[in-house]
């Protein structure tokens, strides 16, 4: 478990020399999740994070035996609870029919924002598990604030479940969240810090970290394959 520091993600207090830029973006991510986004309120966003974390922690259990998952107690629509849990624990089983049913119920931009929270929490939780530090307590939701409804006007259907920026100067995974700019920033600020080295870049494929590029890609490929991710 993390130390009882009053500062979130206080890696140094737990003896980990995590780079400052990584620590900083983790703290910013928690601050952002606690606040109203573009389509969900702060309390809803923290509840999405809570549902995703709990479901991912139960990912090795069959779906029908996850009775102990916490209820949302009215903080989220049931469809959003299902979406957060499925993306957190069973993303590899998602198909077009399921995604379209979620999007029909939630709206495409709310689905994207929900997904951005789940993938961010999953990444930061997995980082804590890899370190041996455990999970950072979720942030306290900021009650004030109204979702601003922002979405990319020029989003295009590229054959994915959701529309996104097009053209785009990078791989499709880099534009998957582009329908909701705030959602895109939330996750990809972490990608840029955690994948590419201290002055590297996910998009430029620069690499100057302590691992060689082949070592990094071997690890990435193994993690992706075990998650049964085709992309």
């Amino acid at each position: 478990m993390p130390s009882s520091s009053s500062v979130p993600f206080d890696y140094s207090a737990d003896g980990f020399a995590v780079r400052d830029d990584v620590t900083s973006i983790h703290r910013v991510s928690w601050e952002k999740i606690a606040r109203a986004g573009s389509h969900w309120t702060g309390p809803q966003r923290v509840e999405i994070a809570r549902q995703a974390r709990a479901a991912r922690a139960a990912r090795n259990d069959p779906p029908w035996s996850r009775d102990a998952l916490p209820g949302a107690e009215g903080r989220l629509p049931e469809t959003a609870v299902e979406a957060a849990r499925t993306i957190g624990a069973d993303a590899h089983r998602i198909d077009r029919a399921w995604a379209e049913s979620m999007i029909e119920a939630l709206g495409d931009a709310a689905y994207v924002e929900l997904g951005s929270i789940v993938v961010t929490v999953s990444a930061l939780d997995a980082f804590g598990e890899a370190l041996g530090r455990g999970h950072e307590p979720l942030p306290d939701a900021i009650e004030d604030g109204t979702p601003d409804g922002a979405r990319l006007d020029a989003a295009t259907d590229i054959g994915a479940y959701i529309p996104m920026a097009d053209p785009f100067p990078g791989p499709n995974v880099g534009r998957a969240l582009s329908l909701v700019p705030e959602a895109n920033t939330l996750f990809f600020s972490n990608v840029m810090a955690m994948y590419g080295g201290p002055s590297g870049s996910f998009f430029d494929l620069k690499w100057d970290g302590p691992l060689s590029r082949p070592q990094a890609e071997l690890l990435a490929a193994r993690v992706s394959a075990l998650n049964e991710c085709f992309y």
Partner: protein
Amino acid sequence: MPAGEQIVGFGEAVVRGSEDLPAAREALRQALGEAGFLEACGIAGIFNGLVRNADFSGIPLDDAALHSSEDFRDKLGLNDFSGAKNSDLSRADASQAGEGLFPHKGQ
């Protein structure tokens, strides 16, 4: 590859959350040193987000990857993953492999 065995073992233990994670962690530390271990934690962490990002959004495989992976996807069983349905695999053409992942770059 240097430390390849430890890297693979660590990645598997993180994804599975298995009981051998502490041992895998220590083996990787021994093989890579603390800085390398921390970098590996970052990659293992962020890819647990990236795979979910790809799967919930239903993005198709980028053309360059579609073409360059044609000769090994089926052998490795990757075409059996649910997300394979999001890409038109019939378009794969190995002769077009090699243009890189960023065909728009520089335009």
